[in-house]
């Protein structure tokens, strides 16, 4: 079984639109949306949910005002500035609480509750391109790295059970915990970039991250015609670092047109754009096959 993850560093370079197209082009695969924070792949795939589960992780401290004697020890111990005294007594700001339990353990009045948190839901769904494993973290929640690991595990098990030879994942922007979790165990990362100062800068960071975790990386330059100088700078970076450039796609409104119709771009009539995507997908499959 092979695992491919689409990443970008910078957001908005076209990760999800291209992941949707690859989900269309790939055979015998499980699709997995690992952007659990702001997932969008379902808008293209219109999944029918077949299984729905709660994602519970971590705890949240809450002061019981009836038991609290107002000593303030909790506020002085909290490293996250989450506990403040307001007019009525000490309160914990849920957006600042890290769930570390220090206030709970040290409260002499045992006045702090520590309930488990329901941080989101995850789903196994069917789509016109095959099974989709996906999730939605509730807005403002944490533990996205854990949820990413859980989705990957589910996708792998499903692939085994159904004899699929590929898990195709859409990743999150950035280089932090959800991205690090999504890279673990991947055979190939495909970074979608754009020829802008931010696109190149963020590609270099995400490439450094892949190198750190020893994940092979290939690159797609989207909107390649926006700035020829930045494009050649990206080409030369990839050439020197040994990252194959799989496709150069023009800045094209048809991607958005497909999105508005709830379709992926390869479902529209064939153009040079979609042919370039098909060639890119063949190369991705070959690279993933070769890796490890």
């Amino acid at each position: 079984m092979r695992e491919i993850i689409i990443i970008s560093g910078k957001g908005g370079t076209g990760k999800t639109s291209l992941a949707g197209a690859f989900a269309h082009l790939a055979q015998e695969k499980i699709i997995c949306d690992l952007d659990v924070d702001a997932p969008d792949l379902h808008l293209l795939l219109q999944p029918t949910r077949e299984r729905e589960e709660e994602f519970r992780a971590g705890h949240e401290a809450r002061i019981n005002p009836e038991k609290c004697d107002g000593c303030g020890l909790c506020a002085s111990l909290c490293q996250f500035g989450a506990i403040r005294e307001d007019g009525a007594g000490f309160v914990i700001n849920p957006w600042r609480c890290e769930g570390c339990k220090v206030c709970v353990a040290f409260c002499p009045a045992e006045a702090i509750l520590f309930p488990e948190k329901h941080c989101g839901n995850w789903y196994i769904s069917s789509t016109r391109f095959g099974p989709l494993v996906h999730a939605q973290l509730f807005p403002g929640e944490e533990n996205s790295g854990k949820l990413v690991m859980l989705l990957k595990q589910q996708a792998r098990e499903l692939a085994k059970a159904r004899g699929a030879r590929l898990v195709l994942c859409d990743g999150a922007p950035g280089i932090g915990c959800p991205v690090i979790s999504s890279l673990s165990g991947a055979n190939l990362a495909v970074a979608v970039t754009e020829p802008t100062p931010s696109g190149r800068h963020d590609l270099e960071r995400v490439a450094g991250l892949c190198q750190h975790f020893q994940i092979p990386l290939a690159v797609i330059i989207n909107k390649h015609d926006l700035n020829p100088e930045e494009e050649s700078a990206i080409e030369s970076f990839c050439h020197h670092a040994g990252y194959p450039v799989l496709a150069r796609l023009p800045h094209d409104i048809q991607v958005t047109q497909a999105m508005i119709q709830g379709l992926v771009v390869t479902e529209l009539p064939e153009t040079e754009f979609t042919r370039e995507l098909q060639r890119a997908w063949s190369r991705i499959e070959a690279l993933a096959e070769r890796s490890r």
Partner: protein
Amino acid sequence: MIVAVASGKGGTGKTTVTASLASLWEGPLIGVDLDVEEPNLHLFLHPILTGEETAHLTIPVVDEATCTYCGACSELCQFKAISVMGRLILTFPEMCHGCGGCLAVCPEKAITPGQRELGEITWGTAGRQGFLMGRLRLGEAMSPPLMRLVKARLEQMLAQTGGDAIIDAPPGVSCPAINAVIDSDVIVLVTEPTPFGFYDFQLAWEAFAPLNKPLGAVINRAGLGTGAIYEFCREKHLPILAEIPYDRAIAEAYARGRIIAQISPELQGTFVSLMAAIRGLAQEAAHA
């Protein structure tokens, strides 16, 4: 006043809006890049950096000569960062959130504070304005601890210079995004009217509205996509502070590293009105 520019979906134009506002802001301002995973504001503001420090998180270091393997630390730790098995104690520094619980709970005082490098904080000037950014170390998973340290420095800088700050926030609506906006006075949500933009905009509204801060929208690439986002803003009484048209010339200027408020008198006017609208939103809230 601290203005946070956030988005939900990535790539909608947060940095474009932040850089444009910074370029024409009236009065002293510090431009702050809190997208520490992928900071880009410096690529547009070209700051002269005058200071730098390495940011650290306090993590446990165990003195095995003093440790009695009682297990109080591992029992308290919620992040599996310290573990006692028989007469063996292990720490997993990359899992540590820096809560200090193990240091406080150890009855033998066998744990002392050590450090994990989070990244760098740099600061300086961009034209007549101040500049501050955080940059996460490659391989570091947690961005909120570094963001907290950048915000602490911002507080110091604002105490010295006075004036306003504008924060370029990370994308998304989970803990890093909340961390970037939670100490601000006004939140500006930058979005685009595509289906992806609209979906993530609704998530951002759900995440940020409970913070009870004045909230306004900037619609970038207006003309692309559908009208759903306008309807949503009407329904939620969310003011649309500015619209930036969908225009290939703007995309190309951005791709060349230009600040788009500087490419045409129309766009300059858009951002001058946006600045006024943000000030208006803050004043309205202050009087409410």
